[in-house]
């Protein structure tokens, strides 16, 4: 059997794939956090809850209306995005003139409320969501067996990240967003409806989290707490990457997911803390983060 550093190749590649999958979620979530933070100056603690909402909406759509995975992939982000926009319009928008810490505290309260509600209604236990038939089974790549759904998740997350990056860097809407991130008042004086832009941005970020949640549903179990522990890791990812750059958030997400996967191969005991350790090291060597522009 082929081995690498004394580890069977198949096991090694298997963990690498798991790392890549986790990295896909880290990347999508930290991307959303960075987009929201860039314009709103709010750290969206509810990002994990919105991710969970995405998965739950997909599950409930299936259970009650028989809506399949593919349609849920479109509907769930829309529902959660609208919910996010509503929250921004009615509550979050009142906090922009205050210390950004209040935004963090508010979204923390929001996350607790959402998670508490779902725990109350559906219990804490995880519920399975099956892989859509079209993507069940796997492909033998010769050197390893790749479950089709996992391949799909990696591909879709790459496309999503790239698409979001293009949207921000190459379109008119993205130019508004970038300009407003730099100087909100002037952009508004030019006749651009910045309050609307803020609502759309938060809604988009929430929708992105929900999209990731639907993608995650068949891999992890759907449970009210699936988002919170994840969001803390994503915060560490964001500290490592620095929130100054969209591309930085994406790259750091994948990198740390892979680093975590590899740790599982070589030193499993440390696998759930490795990202925090990396964060500490980065703080020592480069406090502003790997891609950070802000001090």
């Amino acid at each position, binding site marked *: 059997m082929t081995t690498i550093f004394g580890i069977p190749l198949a096991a090694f590649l298997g963990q690498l794939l798991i790392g890549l999958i986790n990295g896909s979620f880290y990347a999508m979530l930290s991307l959303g956090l960075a987009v929201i933070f860039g314009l709103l100056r709010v750290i969206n603690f509810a990002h994990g809850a919105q991710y969970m909402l995405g998965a739950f909406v997909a599950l409930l759509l299936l259970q009650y209306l028989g809506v399949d995975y593919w349609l849920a992939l479109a509907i769930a982000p829309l529902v959660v995005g609208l919910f996010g926009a509503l929250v921004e319009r009615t509550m979050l928008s009142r906090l922009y003139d205050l210390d950004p*810490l209040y935004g*963090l505290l508010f979204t923390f*309260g*929001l996350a607790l409320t959402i998670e508490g509600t779902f*725990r109350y209604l559906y219990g804490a236990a995880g519920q399975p969501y099956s892989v859509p038939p079209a993507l069940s089974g796997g492909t033998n790549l010769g050197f390893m067996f790749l479950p089709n759904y996992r391949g799909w998740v990696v591909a879709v997350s790459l496309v999503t990240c790239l698409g979001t990056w293009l949207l921000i860097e190459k379109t008119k809407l993205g130019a508004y967003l970038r300009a407003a991130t730099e100087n909100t008042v002037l952009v508004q004086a030019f006749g651009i409806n910045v309050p609307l832009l803020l609502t759309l941005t938060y809604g988009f970020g929430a929708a992105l989290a929900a999209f990731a949640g639907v993608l995650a549903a068949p891999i992890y179990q759907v449970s009210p707490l699936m988002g919170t522990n994840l969001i*803390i890791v994503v915060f560490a990812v964001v500290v490592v990457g620095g929130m100054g750059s969209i591309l930085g958030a994406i790259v750091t997400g994948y990198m740390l997911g892979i680093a975590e996967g590899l740790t599982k191969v070589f030193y499993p*005991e440390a696998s759930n803390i490795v990202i925090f350790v990396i964060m500490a090291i980065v703080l020592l060597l480069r406090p502003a983060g790997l891609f950070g522009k802000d001090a």
Partner: protein
Amino acid sequence: MADMVETTASGERSATAQSIRIGFLLAGLAALAVAPLFLYPVFLMKLLCFALFACAFNLLIGYTGLLSFGHAAFFGGAAYFTAHAVKEWHLTPELGILVGVLGAALLGLVIGFFAIRRQGIYFAMITLALAQMFYFFCLQAEFTKGEDGIQGVPRGHFLGLLDLSTSTNMYYFTLAVFLVGLLVIWRFVNSPFGMILKSIRENEQRAVSLGYSVQYYKLGAFVMSAALAGLAGGTKALVFQFATLTDVTWQMSGEVILMTLLGGIGTLIGPVFGAGLVVTLQHYLATSDFPVTIVTGVVFMACVLLFRRGLVGEFYASRLGRRLGFAYRR
């Protein structure tokens, strides 16, 4: 983020506030002294532990403006340390608590060392992440006994003399710890160190240009806050005679923020009220099947949206409060 309360310089009004304060203080002490006659002692002890925890947390945010999202590590960590020291090393309760305090201070030194490299929301995220790392450590470490936690912790004899196994004795012991903790905080805030912290919070650039090593002072405040949170956590382990994972979770870090925010960030007495409210609320919700998390979350949002100064802070800033000579500076 917020500011401490201080009396206005002009004589008569602040004198009113001062005498009201002293009146409240005496009334409060009297109430605490006789409280076990009317209320369930374990409930009161829990309240005192959390009140001290909230005051310790407030020391950091109220006087340095640093929002720690990881204070559960110090509270719950100290609970483990004390429980282990008392149960496995057979130390007396006061030494056990000392172990908890020192352990929490050391943990605060490590976490603070990394966290003070960034400010604002980054500081919050880093403390959250590092505390989560400590949670995973507690989950896997031998001495914490995993999901079960350290059970059956003996309360022992205070100084080898006073038997703490009766709830009355334990209550007055806890009350003494609480008062010592508050006194330490009060002394610390009014010490030269505390004054420099205040000037850093008001104008960090100026403090730097005056030659103060800002990072050193911030770290000092962080360690102090962690140690006091440890005092609360260690005592709690003796009160309940166990230490579990619950106290090191991020939810616990969130809870102490809520207590402080609800009572009034930066006010000396606010966190005590906040803790009292939250603990009471939990006590009553525990018997219903309505989940505490939802209430906590909603109260959190309401606080941030509607009364950011907290109950005590809003009172100080209200017309009546100002008439009585209190001031709440932002």
